[in-house]
Structure formats: C-alpha cells, structure tokens
C-alpha cells in the first residue's frame, strides 16, 4: 500500500456509479449490442475486412481502446463492461441488474480444478488464437465465429462452474489484460485490512443481500495486485463496512510488491513479448513471404511457421531470458534458485511488453482508424449509408506522427523495465550490475522493434 493513493470513491458521483448497478449494466448491454452486431457482420457481412464492422470495430477500434487506453490507464476496466461473460452471468444469476438474495444460482457450481488454478490455460488459449491470428484478424467470418464461440464457451462455463470461472481462468484476452493492468494507475483495494480481518462474514467473498461474492474468486481483503481483480465493483456493493474503494495510484505500483510472483504469469510475459515481436515481424515487417505463410493455414509452410512461432514463444525467448538470468546470477551470486530468480526478473517484461504492444498497435491503429467511418454507415458492406459516411475514403491519421509516438512509448517501456531489473537486483541484495544482462535483453528487444518500426 502506498500513501500516494487517492480514493476516487470520495467523489460522490464516482461512489454512486461504482456502488450502483444500472450504469454498469447499461455499459455492458451497449457493449453487448456492439458485440452482437460484430458477430452478425462477421457471419453475414462482406468478406472484405476493411468494410466489415466485425473486423474494423473489434480489431481496430476495440483493440485501440483496450491496449492504448484502458489497460495502461484503467487496468481491467474493459473486464468491467465486457459483454462476453454477460449472458452466462445473467443466466447463472437469473438476474440482470439487481441481486436476488437467497435465490439458487443457475449453475452446477463446480470448482475449477486446483491444478489449473493459474494462467497456463490462458497462456495456451492465447497462443492458440495467436497462431491463427493472421486469418482471424482479417477474415470477417472467422472473426464472427471466434467471437460467438467466446460467448458460448463463457455461457457453458458459467453453467458448469462457479462465478466467473471463464474470465478468471479461460479468457485468452483476460490473461494479458490482467498481467499488464499491474502497470495501470487505478486499483480496487480495501481501505483498511484490519477491518477485513475482523469482519467475520467476509461478504465481499461470500456475497450478501447487497450483492454477489467476488465473481473473480478473489478475497478483496488480501488483494495486492490488479492481475485477477476484474474491477466489477461487486465488493464495493457488498462490503457493509464501506471498506473498499477505487484508488488512483502511481503507474506500475503492483510491480513494487515482491510477493505472489509466479511462473505462469512470467510465461504470460514471455508469450506477450514474443507475440508482439512476431506480429511486428510477420504482419508489418518487410518480409511478405512470412505474412503469406501465416495466412496459409494448413500448408506445410504454415506448420513450419507454427512450430517456429511456438518454439519462439515457449522456448527460445524464455531460454534467452533464462541465459540472462544465469548471467545475472554469476555477476551477483544469490541464494535464490535460478527458476525463482527468473520469475522475479521476468516482471520487467510487463512494462516492456505493454510498451511493445502499444507501439505495435500504433503502427496500424492510426493508419486504419478511418475505416471506422464508412463501416459505421455500412456495417455489413451491403451498400448502406446510414449516417452519410459510407463513401468516406481511407485517410491515414497522423501517419507521419506514428514513429515519433512509437519511439517514446518503447523508450518509456524500456526505462521502466530497466528500473524494475535494477530494483530486483537490489531486492536480491546483490550488486546492481547483476541487472545488466536483463537490461541488455530488454534493450536488444527494444532495438529490434525500433529497427522494425523506424528502420
């Protein structure tokens, strides 16, 4: 807990919003209607991606909102309004807005297996989506199918398992949002832990007449990081002691907390970092053969690409990082086992990876954002012109600005990663020079991206 936090719920209007239910429900419902439209457009609209609402609004507009604004500045705010789990959750609760005290939940209420109580499944799910991303991101029909599958799997999961098991353990998007939301300057935390300790009912976890127990299976009284808090604000509604608040805090505050670091989360960091590099190379790099191969799903060349992609994600980049950690150990010998030290240092990849994704996204978001206007008027590519914008041509916004935005973003990410690495060395009580291999790793990665983006 830092003292440099500001309790946003001290502002009456904020308090009303986060403890009320209607506004959040409305936001989810609006998001759901956009989502539904994206699925319909994907399944029935034009196969030309740049004229299909499903592609343009999901992979350009939504992605821009999430990776450029929500995650870095508001953490898991997207999860608070995400429409994917909404139908399942409504069905499970048999209520859309107000809780039904004492009512039986419409679910078998199974518990997620303990051995899967981690991010590994999400790591695999993300890699699975990432392998086919060249096709998913550009083919409206596939996008429509994937989005519909997300909702169906979330619905099925909510019928079988307790609470928001899908969001916590399965959602491929939720995993990286959670990892990177550690950087965000917003958090939901209890005001005074002692109050939670002495409160026997633990209504924030168990639920009460005022609301449901934490849907994300987190006990807010012990919450230290944003990673698994879905910012659904349920605990603000259920705490009878008004002991939960939404705080504004310094960027990256969660990275200062030296407990609870895990290999599955470290691997999420490796995967996200590798994917940012791989996407930059394949999708916007100068090697068109790679892009063509990524599209040619099922061909021998694609299998070679897939194997390379998986090896890079699961072995090559983690292996290189492992080598750097071994070097760090040589420079500053410590009693911490190498595996544990690897996990500790791997969190340097959180700001680095977030910056890499932001820089990568900048390369196509501004340039392609103008596709949103014609698609608003003609979401299915059927020749409509609802708002008179159907004929608006493609205009790359701020194309010249992109490199000058990418460079500071990448440098900021690198500096934060370096600072984290040095801090980790200090925490390990070894010379700060021990962080040098990690810093070199992060620098090489940044230089590679800078070369790709601004050559």
């Amino acid at each position, binding site marked *: 807990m830092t003292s440099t936090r500001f309790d946003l719920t001290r502002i009456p209007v904020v308090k009303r919003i986060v403890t009320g239910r209607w506004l959040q429900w409305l936001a989810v*419902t609006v998001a759901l209607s956009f989502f539904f439209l994206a699925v319909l457009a994907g399944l029935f609209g034009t*196969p030309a991606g740049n004229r299909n609402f499903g592609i343009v609004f999901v992979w350009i507009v939504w992605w821009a909102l999430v990776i450029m604004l929500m995650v870095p500045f508001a953490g898991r705010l997207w999860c608070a309004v995400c429409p994917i789990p909404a139908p399942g959750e409504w069905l499970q609760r048999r209520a*859309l807005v107000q809780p039904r005290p004492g009512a039986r939940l419409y679910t078998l209420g199974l518990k997620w297996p303990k051995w899967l109580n981690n991010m590994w499944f999400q790591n695999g799910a993300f890699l699975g989506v990432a392998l086919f991303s060249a096709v998913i991101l550009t083919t409206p029909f596939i996008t429509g199918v994937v989005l519909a599958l997300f909702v169906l799997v979330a619905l099925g999961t909510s019928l079988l398992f307790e609470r928001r098991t899908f969001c916590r353990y399965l959602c491929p998007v939720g995993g990286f949002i959670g990892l990177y939301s550690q950087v965000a300057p917003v958090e939901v935390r209890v005001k005074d832990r002692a109050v939670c300790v002495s409160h026997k009912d633990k209504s924030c976890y168990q639920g009460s007449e005022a609301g449901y127990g934490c849907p994300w299976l987190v006990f807010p009284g012990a919450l230290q990081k944003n990673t698994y808090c879905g910012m659904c604000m349920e605990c603000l509604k259920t705490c009878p002691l008004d002991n939960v608040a939404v705080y504004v805090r310094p960027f990256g505050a969660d990275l200062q907390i030296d407990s609870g670091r895990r290999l599955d989360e470290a691997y999420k960091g490796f995967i996200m970092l590798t994917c940012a590099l791989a996407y930059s190379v394949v999708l916007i790099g100068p090697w068109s053969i790679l892009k063509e191969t990524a599209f040619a799903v099922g061909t021998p060349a694609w299998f070679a690409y897939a194997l390379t992609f998986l090896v890079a994600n699961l072995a090559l980049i983690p292996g290189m990082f492992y080598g750097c950690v071994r070097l760090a150990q040589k420079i500053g010998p410590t009693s911490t086992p190498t595996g544990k030290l690897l996990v500790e240092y791997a969190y340097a990849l959180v700001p680095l990876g977030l910056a890499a994704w932001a820089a990568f996204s900048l390369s196509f978001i501004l340039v392609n954002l103008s596709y949103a206007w014609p698609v608003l008027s003609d979401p299915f590519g059927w020749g409509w012109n609802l708002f008179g914008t159907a004929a608006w041509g493609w205009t790359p916004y701020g194309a010249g600005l992109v490199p000058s935005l990418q460079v500071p973003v990448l440098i900021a990410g690198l500096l934060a990663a370096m600072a984290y690495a040095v801090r980790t060395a200090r925490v390990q009580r070894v010379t700060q020079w021990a962080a040098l291999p990690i810093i070199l790793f992060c620098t090489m990665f940044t230089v590679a991206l800078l070369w790709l983006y601004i050559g």
Partner: protein
Amino acid sequence: MRSERIALGLVVVMMISLPLLVFGYQALRSNIPDMRVIDLVGYAPASGGWQPETIRVELGEWVRLRIYGQDVVHGLAVPALNIDVPEILPGHVEEVEFLANRAGRFPFACIRWCSTDHWRMRGMIEVVDPAQPNPWKAGTAEPPLFQQLHLDPDAMRTPVAGLPGRPSASRGSALTVGLPGELHDQDWLRAHSPAETFARLRRDASLRPLSDTEIWDLVASAWQKETPAETLRQGQQLYARDCAACHGEAGQGDGPAGRDLPGIATMHPGMASGPTNFTVTANMFSASDALLQGKVLRGGMGTGMPEWGSLYSNEELWAVVSFLRTFGFDVSPAK
C-alpha cells in the same frame, strides 16, 4: 423485480430487434416499386466468379444490379446493354440500372485483371419475352467473315519470308502510284492477308519498277486508308483492357498474365508457347483480318486465349483486329 423485467425486456428487444432491423432494412432496400433489385456478387474465378452467373429478367422490367466486390478489384461490362462499371472495390457496392427493353442473351464480364483466370469471370443476362420465351436460337445472324470464307483459325500457316522490315504507311502514301481497285475495298482487304496483298501488287505490271520494300509500304498504306483513326482508337482501348495483360502492352506476347499459358504450342508442338507475339510480322502477315477475327471471336481452344465473340460487337471485333495490325505496320505520320 420491475427493474429486472425492464432490463430483461431491453436485452431481449436488443437481441431480437438487431437482426430484425439489419435483415429487414436490407430486404426493404430490395423492395423498390417497379424495380427488380438483383444482387450480383463478384469473386475471383477460382472462388466462384460471378454469382449468379446467369441473370434472368423479363422484357420490360427495370432492373437494378447491386454489384458487390468481395475479394479483389473487379469491373463489370455488359456491352450490349451499355453497362460499364470500371471499378468495383472489395467491400464496396456499385449499383447500375437498366431497362430490359429487348429480348436476348447479353453476356457480361469482369473488365479488371482480377486474377490469372480473370477472363473466365463471365456471365449472362437473359431478357425473356414471356410471349416468345426462346428467341435466341442459333443461325439467325449472319455468320462471321472467317466462317463465310471457310477459314480454319487453327490451320498452320507458312510464315512470310524475305520481309524487308516494318512497312511504313506514310512512305507508301508518298509513292505516287495508282493502286488496283480491290485495294480500295475494305472487304477485299479483310479477306486477304498482307502477304496476299503484297503478292497481288507484285504481280501488277505498273508497279514492277518498285522494290519489295516499296510494295510492302504500299500494302501498309492501302490498309491504313481503309482503317479510320477512330477504329484504331477504339481498338487500342479494348486491347489495353482485354488483351495487354497476356499479349503485352507492345504486343510482344510478354504480358504478366500470359506467362504460364500454353499458347499455340498446344496444337502445334514445336511452336513457341505463350501468347502470340504480334510484332513477329512473318507470322502476322500470313494471316488475313478475317482469320484474326475468327481467332479473337472464337478464342484459342486450349491455348489460354479466351473467346471474345460473346462480348464484342462486330464493330469492336474489327477494331481490335485493326489495332493488332499496328504492331506490324508503321502507321506513324511522315517525318
């Protein structure tokens, strides 16, 4: 509970009304009084070509074609109905209207080089008169000239030997000699190859003092005099649109779309494969315009050369054939 019902109602309304609104509005757009709206979807030939391939409308109907580009840039021409949509971008919808005011079968085709199989992207608009449901039986029109002359477009021809270079129409015009009457007859010229025309002139006693080069210049000059400049312009446009991708911009048979085509070697092993090189005058001068008309009209029977007879009017056919001659004859003005 009341608020729950309102929320549930809103969600249900949204889930039901959204598809209803989407598909209802689209259906409404197709329901235009006194207008038949037909969706025509363009895919590259490997993915299906035009869908539907055949459009049937009734005589007297006003028709709106809503043309969707689905994958790459296409274009659409229905020459007989004066429909010309030069560019249909992927994801864009172009609309054209026409009045089906005469019965018949009107071919349409993609007019942008959308893929290597671009020329296969064709279809047919059938305008049916309910009172006379099958008016387009074969044999009612006059057969094309190459058929009237019993020319075989696939027959081997002997290349012309001893050509002096590129015959010049302006040099020929500068020669103050009288030409035999048949050389002022367009039909005669079309029926005879340049080599035959040359032979005719060479036999003429009054032209005996002229060299072979000068006789060839006279052949070029005679051809140019019977070929209006407007015809050449039209032929040039059609050549650029429909022929250049395979035969090359300069007619040398080196267009990018023709690289893998078998060409005449299919029928005559030993001949060069690929699209015909129109600048090889030894071959071109042995073929009459009528023969070239047959080749263009009918296509190449396995050579990769598409048929254009269903798309071109008679005038357009002759325009293209005339333009092909400019690769052999120098028609630039006198220097």
